[in-house]
């Protein structure tokens, strides 16, 4: 005779993975990994933003220096220097890749030296060079050697200050830094996956008795692997949330310290809304990686059983 089924019977997981001693370790491990990953990723994305800005704003321009003419008569010396500047401007304007040639005004030059010499400095009393800002056409490539030659022909007082030369070194350095950070990210993923791999294998060893019974009841490997995947995905998600919660203030702190650096180069390293979205979605990513690692670890390990 069929009896009335109980209204509610809570289903317990066949594999008591919640009580595994490795679970808290894995949660802490994933939290640390996600924290490191988030901070490093923020660094990578900041460097990337800087590189884009540098390439866009600085690579499209160059600076020409006009060395001051030495003369006891200061007014005459200034007039001669400005005459050399004019010659250089004329020569620069004939170059096809050049879009705009703008000599720096006295006011601009004064602003540049203000941090060192203060206000009220008369430029004609100082042996400082005049500067010409040259903007290049978008996408245009400039033969710097030829330009330097042309300027030398126009006036011996002109010299090319090649941003590209020092910037390319800076870009190579930043690129290297970026690759290093990317390698660190891969390393973090590998170490975390390795930790999940070994803790899962340990857990399989602990629960081999239950697994044998489940197999005997007709459970496929996927059934057992799913239980591990579900549990590890949860640990990955929770660990990921903790990691991101710790990483966000850290990123703000580093960003605040970076913005205090004078020169404006580091201040270009701002994270976009999209970058923040990526950082905030890291718990999902860690959950997914954890889930897949656990799933395939179980599947591969069980293959060795009958």
């Amino acid at each position, binding site marked *: 005779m069929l009896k009335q*089924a109980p209204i509610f019977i809570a289903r317990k997981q066949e594999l008591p993975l919640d009580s595994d001693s490795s679970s808290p370790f894995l949660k802490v491990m994933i939290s640390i990994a996600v924290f490191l990953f988030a901070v490093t990723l923020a660094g990578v994305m900041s460097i990337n933003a800087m590189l884009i800005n540098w390439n866009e704003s600085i690579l499209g321009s160059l600076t020409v220096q006009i060395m001051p003419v030495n003369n006891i008569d200061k007014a005459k010396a200034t007039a001669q220097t400005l005459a050399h500047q004019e010659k250089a401007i004329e020569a620069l304007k004939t170059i096809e890749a050049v879009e705009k040639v703008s000599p720096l005004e006295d006011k601009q030059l004064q602003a540049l030296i203000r941090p060192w010499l203060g206000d009220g400095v008369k430029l004609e009393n100082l042996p400082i060079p005049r500067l010409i800002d040259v903007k290049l056409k978008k996408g245009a490539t400039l033969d710097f050697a030829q330009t330097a030659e042309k300027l030398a022909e126009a006036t011996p007082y002109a010299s090319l200050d090649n941003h590209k030369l020092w910037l390319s070194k800076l870009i190579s350095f930043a690129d290297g830094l970026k690759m290093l950070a990317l390698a660190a990210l891969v390393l973090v993923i590998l170490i975390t996956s390795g930790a999940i791999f070994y803790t899962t294998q340990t857990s399989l060893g602990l629960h081999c008795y239950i697994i044998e019974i489940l197999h005997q*009841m007709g459970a496929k490997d996927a059934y057992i692997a799913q239980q591990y995947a579900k549990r590890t995905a949860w640990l990955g998600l929770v660990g990921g949330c903790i990691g991101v919660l710790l990483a966000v203030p850290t990123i703000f702190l580093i960003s605040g310290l970076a913005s205090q650096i004078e020169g404006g180069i580091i201040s270009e390293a701002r994270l976009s809304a999209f970058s923040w979205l990526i950082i905030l979605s890291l718990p999902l990513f860690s959950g997914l990686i954890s889930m897949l690692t656990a799933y395939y670890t179980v599947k591969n390990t*069980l293959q060795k059983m009958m």
Partner: protein
Amino acid sequence: MLKINQGDPIIEMQNVGIRYGQGPEILSDIKLSLKKGSFHFLTGKSGAGKTSLLSMMYLAQKPSRGIVSVFGKNVNFTNRDSLAMLRRRIGVVFQDFRLLDHLSAFDNVALPLRVCGMEEQEVKKRVVELLSWVELSKHMQATPATLSGGEKQRIAIARAVINRPDILLADEPTGNVDNDIAPKLMKLFVELNKLGTTVVIATHSEKLISDFAYPRLHLQNHGLRIYNANDLTGMGGGSHA
């Protein structure tokens, strides 16, 4: 699913040998053919290899040599998922019950249904019905640790038959129960056999066997002898039942 008709061979063994590691063969040159709907006792002294032979039948172990076919499939050439599907058609009662201690009686019995992906509503219906049949309705939420040997045995049997298996393999099913329960359990096995389930019961209890006129698979000197139901005459290793 491969359909097996009444009288068709359900488990076949040809020249089967089994050894553990580099040790000697526990069983040698086993030839056997169990037909659907048959009932056999598996006998032999302790250490004769009853559990090893059963474990090959319930696909927990592959032979060291020879061919084992279950439901017409050679287990040596069957992939893991197909082996799992075959195991779903085999009910096993282990000598040590092998219940999961952290699960309730209900969850233990529900295990074979859940691994098959059965709807929870249907699982509840079947488990409640079967636990009532083995008179354990009151202990549905009890864990094995709180149950007596006989109660555990009944749960183990309920778990083995919940999936309506084609074969029921029982290893010393009456070994841990009181004398008054043993005949009841045997009656249960006979009833299942009448419903078409192939039954193999490993036992060393002569008293239990003597009450039933079923053929006997007897393990001796690493080989298998099959005694038929009527005269129990030795037919030699490798004969068919």
